[in-house]
């Protein structure tokens, strides 16, 4: 079985974000693999462990994206490809999806392409469905459990607002994985060494066989959210009942119920 897992590089989730001279800054916080993508890598690895086959990590990004790729390799992916093209800086999600879909075709397709649920930086969460649409494959997004997978079919549970939807889809298929799937493994010592030595081929957009897609969505202005003036008030009293009664009155005064 051939599986491709798409991984993105993002600022660490603990980063304090700011805007400096109109540019987004994460200070000295490290760049890491998108946390959701670790679940995607985990799912891809477990699928090949059960079915045999290889996992290829694919990322679109600049030099920085190498950290995400290294992490995926260290977890156990056998190969990786980086699409690194300065012309894609500032691309919107549909442009990114077009390039990823083209790269997937260029690799020679796959049985399964696995995505994270969402990137924790720009939070668009549409790349998996767009890539599925471009490839013409079924999209099985928000997978919380893979019940069964054969060479021709996958059965999975999807997490939706109302509960779980169980689906069966023909391969090839696009998946996105949510946290219920199971905790991602830590890279092993051997894995880290292997990843450090791995050579990662770099492609331009032209190498994927398509013309540069034009970006449609732009973000002319990024700003810090307005400071919210919160007046902090500590509710005190001589016993829990008194505190609770005071707090209840305060909550009622806010007129939010």
């Amino acid at each position: 079985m051939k599986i491709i897992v798409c991984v993105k590089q993002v600022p660490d989730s603990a980063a304090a974000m700011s805007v400096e001279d109109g540019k987004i800054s994460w200070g000295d916080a490290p760049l890491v693999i998108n946390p959701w993508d670790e679940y995607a890598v985990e799912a891809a690895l477990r699928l090949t462990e059960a079915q045999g086959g290889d996992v290829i990590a694919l990322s679109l990004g600049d030099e920085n994206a190498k950290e995400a790729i290294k992490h995926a390799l260290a977890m156990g992916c056998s190969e990786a490809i980086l699409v690194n093209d300065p012309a894609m800086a500032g691309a919107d999600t549909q442009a990114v999806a077009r390039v990823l879909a083209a790269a997937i075709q260029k690799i020679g397709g796959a049985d399964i392409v696995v995505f994270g649920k969402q990137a924790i930086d720009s939070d668009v969460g549409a790349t998996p469905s767009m890539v599925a649409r471009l490839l013409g494959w079924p999209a099985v997004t928000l997978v919380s459990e893979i019940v069964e997978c054969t060479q021709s079919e996958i059965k999975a549970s999807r997490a939706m607002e109302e509960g779980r939807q169980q689906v069966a889809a023909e391969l090839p298929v696009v998946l996105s994985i949510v946290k219920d799937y199971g905790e991602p493994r830590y890279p092993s010592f051997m894995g880290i060494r292997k990843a450090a030595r791995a050579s990662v081929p770099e492609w331009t957009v032209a190498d994927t066989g398509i013309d540069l897609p034009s970006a449609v969505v732009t973000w002319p202005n990024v700003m810090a959210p307005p400071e919210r003036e919160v007046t902090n008030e500590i509710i005190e009293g001589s016993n829990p009942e008194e505190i609770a009664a005071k707090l209840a009155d305060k909550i009622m005064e806010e007129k939010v119920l």
Partner: protein
Amino acid sequence: MANRVWAYVDQFKSQALLASWEVVFTGRKLADQLGSGLTVLVIGSHLDALAKAAIEYGADEVLLVDDPSLEDYRASPYAAALAGAVGENKLDIFLFPTTTRGREVAGMAAIDLNTGVLVDVTEIKLDGDKVTAIRPVYAGKLLSEVVCNAKPQLVTLRGRAFEKPVPDAGRTGTVTKLPTVMAEDEIKLKVTGYQAAEGGVSLTDASVIVSGGRGTSNNSAEPPAEITDESEKEIWKAQQGFILINDLASVLDGAVGASRAAVDAGYVPYVHQVGQTGKVVSPDLYIACGISGAIQHLAGMRSSKVIVAINKDPEAPIFKYARFGVVGDLYKILPPLTAAMKERLEK
């Protein structure tokens, strides 16, 4: 001439999700500003009641793709139905709710209609027919202004961020049924089952959320003797706290939330997780019990209107964001608080 503003209604088992009516209602306002009518598209099965409601919330024209094969949501036939409905119509704006299905259908529509999508926006401004939207990024640590330089401008609206929709039973509009686009044998995905979530109010719709964190495990009660495993003991202890949290949530008609620490330790399932890698919520009232206020948790709830924190540690970062704080033990505060709220709400 076709309407220039469209809205998509996300439904499940022929019931619209609340966010759908916010989208129709907002669509109505934008259509009025543009001097256009509003078209509402509903895809599914048994949709007549939804068509009527869509008109009451602001539709002039309702397009229904109503077919048994569309009973359960599946991405490809829904996306194909949407692209078919749009056809050659020239529209300026197409609004969707940011539900799991709405986000997905909108993404696929961006590909089919050769345009882009502004996702999970909290504000919309119109300049002529050009949308400038505001969307939180980095889990709300920053806001960005976004525009879509192609048409239709696809936009998904965050739930509860726009005006509360009010139906008007006197409104009139047309209803047109459109044929389905994909035959069953062309669809490579079957829905084989469905398992309802445990009851309770959904986090994203809730106007009140009561959340618990790792502090729930700090409970002096002793677990029953048959529980010997240490982590089982911890879970038992913490779950007593979640029972209290659930009691308060019920009195407030609210939902139960949790920190990642509480979810990872197995106190409650992941559907309850609030934060950067859980749900981003914005209720009118958020009560955090035994939660320290880590940046990833704050990212998911800090836009709540009124935040209340109950925490033993006066230095806990959550207090900086809380309108009201109680420095104390959640096990001591919650029972009388639930009783006091019950009394005041006359329940």
